[in-house]
């Protein structure tokens, strides 16, 4: 629906809404479309403004009888204003919608289009919701109406929407005012309202500055620097504020549970950090909330716990909360996702007195063994519940290590039996892979929670080896497990598994898995058994894939140091294997093993560089060629630098200048972008380079995923005149912000102004605007532009005015208006449709004067 089709649809939709032949039901459906896809239907600010205006026109022109259209029209107008980014003091539609909503919300007569007042009542709630959404998107919007909202709450009107709206705008206003250092004066005074006069945008405009990406924050009660610290209300103000909060809390029972939870989060975060506002106001609600099983309500209580700590929860309260949480985490009447969430809450419980580092999962201090025992895992649990409970069991084991040594059934033994049960299920032929996955996940969890506890690790190792014996097809799981666990478990497990594989006769059906396993676990020592196993296996390796698996084991042994037996085996394989590719490989390995000393062998086998060469069967034709396969690490005999910017095609291209210090052949330059800012870059190949002979510049096309500067790691792979292959890392190259600049196609003569203005206007709904002072050196604006920005100038009135449009791949743009230059600098108005570009652009402009 995106693009021109969407816009056509948007136009049709608006005209259909005015079509008297269409039924109300059809129009309601059309409006629901506009609720879900407003930015596709009206993609830019002006279209959104026009659409909102049109929707409001339809609304006021409705005949004065009940209609199902009023509610969706209000919702749609609100959505369009927000998503179009139009909401603001300069938008006519905003200035119409806001007073209308506030009028409806306060139950006033808002005009004929809405019929008699009694029919406007059902719309009160909708109007409140629209206002709440607008306030969420523009905090502070309702700052001027707090008094009115509060007085409405005391009178009549739908309690839930008004409570939530008041709580949200109260919180927003307090935060914004505390930033600006203003007082709460008059904030909550009733009767003060913008109902009749023009809308007060002051707070909203201050608030907008704060609506930016946030660092993660679930503040502990001990942490300073929360938003409201600066606000120290006077005693009267504090009293007024407390009264408002108490009023909201008293009526909270009348809200739906989800709305109660929202109110508690809001009020909790409002009072938190406000000096002189004890959280005791919440206390009367807690017993009621703790009695329920409502996910949202218990979650809100946990939020209060995190916000206030022991200021609200005594040790006994904390214990009760834990008890209720433990109980809810297993209550048979609650669904699984709820159990899982509560188990998670237990592991991340906001403690009154935290000990460990934050963010680490741990059992709460007051969760004693008795409580823990009720949450033990069993094979009958769902996998996720089993893992969550297993985590707790591990924590319990870690704590009980010293105690209960003589006890028959300690948690340790239970843990062991549980793991054994999981392995037994995974071992059954034909059982689904999920069971094997669960078994290894549980083993991994235990291994990571109880690392270093031989008591559990030894049976785990033997259990896993036994599992492998029963079901070799689980080899990939074991390989993955070995990759993930630490050496204290991994090393002994490898030895046991190696023993497990080689001590059994070779059987066809499991050979593939055994070879895969050996490639992982085979090591230098204990080779005799391994080699005889491989020798025996070779006769069974009848297809290509099995032969490759066999050779992978040989390669692993080679990497581990080889040995005499391996030389013999490779020789046998080089003769005996059916597949020529297999024979080639075996011969190559043999050559490498026979001719190279340990360290060189290591380099030759470096999988990143040597692997492609090793796969070539040509090599076998000339045994002496093997030596050329060794890749040497050397310092770079070449110098690479970024040349002047050039514009070529539809992508930014980096011009590279290369200079060789000695003759080199078959140079391949490989580039890697740090941080995945750009799509992977292709390699550049140069057949021959010679010192003193000018080399052609190289062109490296960039495919940015984001318009941001980056560093490129560079590696060179080349041959020397002596035929050796060398590998050299080069110093990283920088791609600057301006290297990404691309021009817009030059508009035809005479329409430049319009073209630029169109671009300029299109930025704002989504993007950002800024002003920068660009200092000018002695050379003046004209030289500056011609040096740096010439290709991007759309309109120029030298020497003082330039309009510049820059395309920034992948899909943004940067527009500059350099107007009325002065001697020492020029004010630059800049706009972009991607706010992230703004700081880069600012730095670029400020830095221009220093560069040539």
């Amino acid at each position, binding site marked *: 629906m995106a693009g021109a089709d969407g816009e056509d649809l948007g136009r049709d939709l608006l005209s259909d809404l005015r079509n008297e032949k269409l039924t109300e039901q059809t129009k309601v459906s059309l409006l629901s479309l506009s609720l879900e*896809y407003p930015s596709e239907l009206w993609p830019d600010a002006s279209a959104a403004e026009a659409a909102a205006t049109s929707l409001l026109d339809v609304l006021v022109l409705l005949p004065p009888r009940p209609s199902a259209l009023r509610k969706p029209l209000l919702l749609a107008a609100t959505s369009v204003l*927000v998503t179009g980014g139009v909401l603001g003091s300069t938008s006519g539609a905003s200035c119409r919608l806001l007073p209308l909503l506030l009028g409806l919300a306060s139950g006033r007569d808002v005009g004929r289009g809405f019929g008699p007042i009694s*029919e406007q009542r*059902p719309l009160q709630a909708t109007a409140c*919701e629209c206002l709440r959404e607008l306030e969420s998107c523009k905090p502070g919007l309702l700052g001027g109406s707090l008094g009115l909202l509060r007085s409405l709450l005391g009178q009549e009107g739908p309690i839930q929407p008004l409570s939530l709206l008041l709580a949200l705008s109260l919180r927003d206003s307090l935060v914004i005012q505390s930033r600006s250092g203003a007082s709460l004066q008059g904030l909550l005074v009733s009767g003060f309202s913008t109902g009749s006069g023009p809308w007060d945008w002051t707070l909203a405009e201050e608030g907008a500055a704060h609506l930016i990406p*946030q660092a*993660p924050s679930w503040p502990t009660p001990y942490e300073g620097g929360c938003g409201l610290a600066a606000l120290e209300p006077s005693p009267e103000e504090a009293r007024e504020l407390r009264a408002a909060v108490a009023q909201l809390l008293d009526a909270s029972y009348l809200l739906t549970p989800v709305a109660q*939870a929202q109110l508690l989060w809001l009020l909790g975060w409002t009072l938190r950090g406000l000096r002189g506002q004890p959280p005791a106001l919440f206390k009367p609600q807690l017993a009621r909330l703790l009695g329920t099983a409502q996910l949202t309500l218990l979650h809100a209580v946990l939020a209060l716990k995190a916000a206030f700590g022991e200021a609200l929860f005594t040790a006994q309260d904390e214990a009760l909360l834990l008890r209720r949480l433990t109980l809810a985490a297993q209550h048979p009447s609650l669904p699984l996702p709820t159990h899982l969430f509560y188990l*998670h809450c237990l592991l991340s419980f906001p403690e009154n007195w935290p000990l460990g580092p934050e963010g680490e999962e741990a059992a709460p201090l007051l969760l004693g063994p008795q409580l823990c025992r009720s949450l033990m895992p069993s094979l009958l649990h769902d996998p996720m519940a089993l893992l969550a409970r297993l985590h707790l069991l591990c924590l319990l084991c870690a704590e009980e290590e010293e105690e209960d040594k003589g006890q028959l059934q300690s948690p340790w033994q239970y843990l062991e039996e549980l793991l054994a049960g999981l392995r037994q299920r995974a071992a059954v032929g034909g059982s689904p*892979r999920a069971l094997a996955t669960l078994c290894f996940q549980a083993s991994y969890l235990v291994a990571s929670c109880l690392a270093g506890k031989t008591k559990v690790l030894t049976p785990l190792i033997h259990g896993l080896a036994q599992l492998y014996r029963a079901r070799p097809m689980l080899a990939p799981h074991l390989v993955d497990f070995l990759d993930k666990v630490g050496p204290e478990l991994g090393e002994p497990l490898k030895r046991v598994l190696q023993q497990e594989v080689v001590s059994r006769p070779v059987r066809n059906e499991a050979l593939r898995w055994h070879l895969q396993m050996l490639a992982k676990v085979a090591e230098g020592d204990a080779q005799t058994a391994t080699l005889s196993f491989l020798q025996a296996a070779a006769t069974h390796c009848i297809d290509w894939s099995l032969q490759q698996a066999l050779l992978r084991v040989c390669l692993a042994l080679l990497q581990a140091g080889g040995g005499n037996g391996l030389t013999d085996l490779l020789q046998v394989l080089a003769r005996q294997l059916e597949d020529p590719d297999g024979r080639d490989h075996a011969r190559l390995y043999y050559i490498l093993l026979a001719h190279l000393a340990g360290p060189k062998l290591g380099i030759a086998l470096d999988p990143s560089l040597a692997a492609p060469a090793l796969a070539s069967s040509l090599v076998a034709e000339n045994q002496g060629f093997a030596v050329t396969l060794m890749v040497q690490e050397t310092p770079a005999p070449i110098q690479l630098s970024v040349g002047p910017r050039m514009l070529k095609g539809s992508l930014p291209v980096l011009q590279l200048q290369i200079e060789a210090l000695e003759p080199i052949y078959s140079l391949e330059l490989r580039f890697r972008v740090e941080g995945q800012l750009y799509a992977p870059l292709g390699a550049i190949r140069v057949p021959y380079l010679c010192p003193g002979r000018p080399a052609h510049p190289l062109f490296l096309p960039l495919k940015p995923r984001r318009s941001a500067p980056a560093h490129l790691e560079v590696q060179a792979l080349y041959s020397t005149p002596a035929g050796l292959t060398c590998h050299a890392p080069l110093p990283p190259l920088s791609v600057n912000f301006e290297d990404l600049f691309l021009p817009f196609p030059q508009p035809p003569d005479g329409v430049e102004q319009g073209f630029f203005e169109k671009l300029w206007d299109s930025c704002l709904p989504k993007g950002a605007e800024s002003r920068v002072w660009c200092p000018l050196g002695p050379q003046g604006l004209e030289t500056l532009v011609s040096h740096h920005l010439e290709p991007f100038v759309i309109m120029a009135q030298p020497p003082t005015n330039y309009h510049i449009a820059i395309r920034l791949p992948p899909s943004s743009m940067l527009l500059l208006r350099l107007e009325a230059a002065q001697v020492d600098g020029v004010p630059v108005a800049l706009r972009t449709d991607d706010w992230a570009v703004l700081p880069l652009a600012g730095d670029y402009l400020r830095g221009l004067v220093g560069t040539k």
Partner: protein
Amino acid sequence: MLQPLAMALRAVWLIRHEPGTPLCGSVRFSRRYPTVEKRAKIFNGVSYVPVPEDGPFLKALLFELKLLDGDKDFVGSRDSCSHINKTSIYGLPLGGEELWPVVAFLRNGLIYASVPLVEQTLSPRPPLISISGISQGLQLLFGIQDFLYLSQKNDGELNTKLSQLPDLLLQACPFGTLLNANIQNLLDNSNFAPVTQPQKQPAWKAGTYKGKPQVSISIAEKVKSMQYDKQDVADTWQVVGAVTCKCDLEGIMTNVTISLSLPTNGSPLQDILVHPCVTSLDSAMLTSSSIDAVDDSAFSGPYKFPFTPPSESFNLCYYTSQVPVPPILGFYQMKEEEVQLKIAVNLKLHESVKNNFEFCEAHIPFYNRGPITHLEYKVSFGQLEVFREKGLLVWIIGQKFPKSMEISLSGTVTFGAKSHDKQPFDQICIGGTAYVKLHFRILDYTLTGCYADQHSVQVFGSGKPKISTHQKLISSDYYIWNSKAPAPVTYGSLFL
């Protein structure tokens, strides 16, 4: 920084899981919230990942939930041992980026999913517990699930309900911020939307009742049990009760108090969870928990529940209880002898239990074996039905146990060759591990003895209502394990 707390959702999906089809599922409903998405883009900053189209979302979600067909090969990103998920919240890989957090669960073949707004950057990930939208998202999905599956019988009805969902969601969650998770209630009340909303009308109660005042209270207890007949493993059993009320009373804020009582020596109610409409709860009820060992000092009622009733039928409270003996005690012995299985089952009804069942059956399944080819048996009471293909015996005990209260079944069973598609794999019943599962129901009876005394129901500010009470006991997960082989145990069985 301004930490906004709007607790909104960016999108909601309902996906039908269709194993065996090319995509393994289809999106049956989706709703996106563009104003919330707009905020997500701002708050998440560079870590922002847009809500994807339905197609890619479906694929990524099914993969992550392991619901795509073909788990034949090990896939690291799905099957790795370190890829551990312990909650219903997932990160979905989408075109090199990860959409997180996605709240999702599968229930009755439908996947319920939503993406809550996180009002901060996502890298590093904030702790789940700090994201208010998680519980809000789950609650909405639960609400939708209740709505779809309440008294729904077939696909046609499901489709009807799905077609009602957009309108209902427009009321429950117009902008992505959840207003009411009780979707069913919104539908029931849409018929008589109030013209005026008087002050103090709870948001969860639309309209008022006009007519004869009446209060109906039903107590349904489920009894679960795991019996092993072993020396070193203790049997376990537990009663789980649900009290459902429907109060047809005039007035908006009528206060009602219902008391649940126990007979002398009745088993105390524990783990009490109440409906949010309950206004206060005695601390003894709040702390009474199955985690503690029961002693004589435990609070044993009466359990008072003061509340203002919603218009619809609702679950006033849930509880559990630890009764002294299981209603039916039994043992199951199964032994493999050459080609056949020898089985013996014995069941004994406890004398204190009302011997008047609506029905009572013992199901004896044989998993991971072929179809039953031959059966010889003897029952002391009732009849035995054989489902050969399913490998299942059903012992129909009927309405009453005989005077002796004890019945038995013995026999030998022979099986044919196993074919995987007909006898599905069971992950527990491997080898000799096997169970008998009891299914029974007794009306006008609770195992705890818990009852709602008609005279104890207090209704303030309304005429004297007609009060009706109902009780029933149902079996649920009532297992008797083969005592001749290992059986899955819970931690409690080892420590009691």
